[in-house]
C-alpha cells in the first residue's frame, strides 16, 4: 500500500486544499528555500471574520526526514478540518475493536476553533531530506547541506540536524546529550553555526513575523508529549539560573554538574496540563498511552525548535511568548525502519491528529472568545486573567482551573452551537470582567442565577465523571451572594471542586 508522498506531492496537496477552501485557507511560503532550492510551503486556516485578533498555532512536520508519518498526519488533519468546517460534521477518531471510546470534536467546536485561531500548518519543513529518504537512504534524518572536508571513510559530510541548529544553548553538548559538533555524524550534527541552515532559519523568521501562541513540532517515535527544557532539569525557584547566562558554541558540556534551567512555574503548569489533555485525547482514539514529560527525559538536547520557540520571550522580553511541545508519534516496531515509517501508519496518524487537534482546541481562549470575538461583545478580560493567575497559586485554585480545562471542549461546543447560550455566556463574562475591574462591585442574586444557568447547560453535556465537580461549582456559587471579587476568590481558593 503506497502511503507516503514526495515533498512535491505534499506541497501539491496543500495547494489543492487551499484552492478548495479559498474563502478561509491560503498557502504561504516560508522565507527561504531549502538547501537544494525547494520552496517550503504551508497552509494557513483563518475562518470567519478575518479582522479579529487571534491566537496563532503552528504545527510543524518533517523536520527529521525519516519520520515520514507526520507530514502525512498534518495534511490529513487539514483535510479533516476543512471537511468539518464546510460540511458541519463532527470529527471522530476511533478504531473499531480497540475498546477505546474514540475521540470526538463537535462540528460547532471545530467551527468556533477555526473562526478564532490562525492555524498554520507546515507539513514538510525539510523537503530535501524527505525526498532523500524516499530515493536513497530511508533512515536519513538531517537536511542535505554539503559540509566541508572528508570523513574518515572517504565520504563527504552531508547534513545538519535541523532540530539542533536553533538559538537555544546552540552547540553545547549536555552530558549524555544527543548532539554533536562533528559534521561527519550521521544524525545529530548541530551545524557550523547557530541557524546556519535555511530550513531552521525559516522557523526563526516565522516566529519573529507571526504571533504564535502554541507550537507543536511533530516527530517520531516513542509516544511522548514533551515540553521544555531539553538541556537541563527544570527548576522553578531561581530565575537567574537561565540559559541567557550560558556560553554557546562550546561543543562541550554545560559547566557545573548541578545546573538546572529556570522555568516559570505557571508556564510549567500550562505546558504540563495542555500536554496531559493531549495525551488524554490520544488515549481515547484506540488506547495508546502517550507519556507527558520534560524533553530531557527522552535524552538531553540543545538547539531544538520547541525550546527555541519557548525561549524567545526570555531572551528578548519584547518577543511574543510561544508555548512549545514535541509530539513523538508512534510506538517502537519490530524494526527501526518500521518505527519511523511503518507500512500502515493509519492508526498512528489518527493518534497524531488527535494530539494536534487537542492542542488546537486548547489554544482557543474561551473567555476571550466569548468576551471579545466574534460575537459583538467588547469586554476587557485582563482582570479575569489576573484571577486565573491567582488561582494558579493554590492547590484548590489549580483544581478549579483543571476542571475548567476539562470542560473547555464542551464550552466551545455550546458557544458554537447555541446562540442563546452564547448570549448568557457573554453576559457572564461581562459580569466577571466588571467585578474584576471594580473592587466595590459585588455579586448579586441575578449574577448568581446567570452563573448557575451556564453551569447547568455545561453539566448537561459534560462527561459524566465531571458532573459531581460541576455540582460542587454550583454549590459554591450559591454561597457567594454579596461578595466582591477578592472575597469570591478567597472562597474559591479555599475549597477545591472535589
Amino acid at each position, binding site marked *: *500500500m*503506497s*502511503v*507516503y*508522498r*514526495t515533498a512535491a*506531492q505534499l506541497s*501539491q*496537496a496543500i495547494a*489543492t*486544499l487551499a484552492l*478548495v*477552501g479559498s474563502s478561509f485557507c491560503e498557502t504561504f511560503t516560508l522565507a527561504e528555500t531549502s538547501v537544494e532550492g525547494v520552496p517550503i510551503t504551508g497552509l494557513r486556516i483563518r475562518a470567519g471574520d478575518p479582522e479579529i485578533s487571534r491566537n496563532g498555532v503552528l504545527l510543524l512536520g518533517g523536520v527529521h526526514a525519516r519520520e*515520514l508519518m507526520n507530514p502525512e498526519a498534518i495534511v490529513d488533519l487539514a*483535510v479533516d478540518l*476543512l*471537511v468539518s468546517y*464546510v*460540511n458541519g460534521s463532527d470529527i471522530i477518531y476511533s478504531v473499531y475493536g480497540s475498546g477505546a471510546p474514540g475521540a470526538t470534536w463537535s462540528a460547532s467546536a471545530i467551527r468556533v476553533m477555526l473562526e478564532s485561531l490562525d492555524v498554520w500548518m507546515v507539513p514538510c519543513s525539510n523537503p530535501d531530506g524527505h525526498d532523500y*529518504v*524516499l*530515493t*536513497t*537512504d*530511508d*533512515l536519513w*534524518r538531517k537536511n542535505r547541506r554539503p559540509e566541508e572536508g572528508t*570523513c*574518515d*571513510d*572517504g*565520504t563527504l*559530510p*552531508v547534513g545538519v540536524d535541523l532540530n539542533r541548529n536553533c538559538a537555544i544553548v546552540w552547540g553545547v*553538548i549536555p*552530558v*549524555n*546529550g*544527543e*548532539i*554533536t559538533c*562533528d559534521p*561527519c*555524524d*550521521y*544524525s*545529530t550534527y548541530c551545524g557550523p553555526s547557530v541557524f546556519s541552515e535555511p530550513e531552521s532559519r525559516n522557523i526563526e523568521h516565522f516566529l519573529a513575523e507571526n504571533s504564535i501562541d502554541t507550537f507543536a513540532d511533530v516527530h517520531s*517515535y*516513542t509516544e511522548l508529549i514533551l515540553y521544555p527544557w531539553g538541556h537541563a532539569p527544570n527548576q522553578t525557584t531561581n530565575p537567574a539560573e537561565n540559559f541567557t547566562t550560558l556560553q554557546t558554541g562550546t561543543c562541550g558540556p554545560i559547566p557545573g554538574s548541578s545546573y538546572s534551567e529556570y522555568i516559570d512555574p505557571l508556564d510549567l503548569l500550562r505546558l504540563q496540563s495542555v500536554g496531559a489533555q493531549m495525551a488524554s485525547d490520544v488515549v481515547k482514539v484506540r488506547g495508546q498511552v502517550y507519556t507527558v514529560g520534560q524533553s530531557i527525559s*527522552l*535524552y538531553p538536547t540543545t538547539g531544538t525548535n520547541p525550546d527555541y520557540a519557548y525561549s524567545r520571550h526570555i531572551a528578548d522580553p519584547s518577543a511574543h511568548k510561544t508555548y512549545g511541545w514535541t509530539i*513523538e508519534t508512534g510506538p*517502537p516496531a519490530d*524494526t*527501526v*525502519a518500521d*518505527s519511523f*515509517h511503518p*507500512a500502515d501508519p493509519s492508526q498512528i496518524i489518527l493518534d497524531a491528529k488527535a494530539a494536534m487537534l487537542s492542542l488546537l482546541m486548547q489554544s482557543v481562549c474561551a473567555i476571550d472568545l466569548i468576551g471579545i470575538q466574534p460575537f459583538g461583545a467588547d469586554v476587557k478580560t485582563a482582570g479575569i486573567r489576573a484571577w486565573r493567575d491567582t488561582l494558579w497559586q493554590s492547590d484548590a485554585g489549580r483544581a478549579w482551573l483543571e476542571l475548567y480545562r476539562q470542560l473547555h471542549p464542551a464550552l466551545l461546543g455550546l458557544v458554537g452551537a447555541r446562540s442563546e447560550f452564547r448570549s448568557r455566556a457573554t453576559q457572564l463574562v461581562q459580569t466577571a470582567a466588571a467585578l474584576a475591574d471594580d473592587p466595590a462591585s459585588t455579586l448579586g442574586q441575578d449574577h448568581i442565577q446567570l452563573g448557575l444557568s451556564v453551569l447547568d447547560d455545561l453539566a448537561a453535556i459534560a462527561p459524566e465523571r465531571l458532573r459531581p465537580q460541576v455540582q460542587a461549582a454550583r454549590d459554591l456559587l450559591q454561597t457567594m451572594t454579596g461578595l466582591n471579587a477578592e472575597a469570591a476568590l478567597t472562597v474559591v481558593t479555599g475549597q477545591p471542586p472535589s
Partner: protein
Amino acid sequence: MNTQGNAARVRLEATIRPRPTRSPDPSLLHGLDVLPRLDGLLHVLMSPDQIAPVVAAGYEVRVFAAVPIRPLDPALIMDDATAQAWIDDKVAQIRGDRRP
C-alpha cells in the same frame, strides 16, 4: 571518527551498556544515532567502524540487526496518479460530493 557510515552501505542496530569492570568514557558515544531506549538500554544505529572505539571506551555492544542503507521501499511511495486520486477524493468529501 567517521560516523557518516555511507561507505559500508550498512548500519548496525545495537544496544550498548557499560562493562561492569570498566569506567566507560561517555564522550565516545557522541556521534551514535541514538534511538528511543530498548529494554532500558541505550539503543543506537551505528556504523561497523564505530564498534571498536566504543568497546575500547568500556562498553559492551550487542548488535542484533544489520540495517542496509537503502531507499524507502518503493511500494510505500505514492506515485503521482495515486496522490492525485487521494486529493481528488478528499476534495470531493470537502465539497460534499456524492461518491459512487
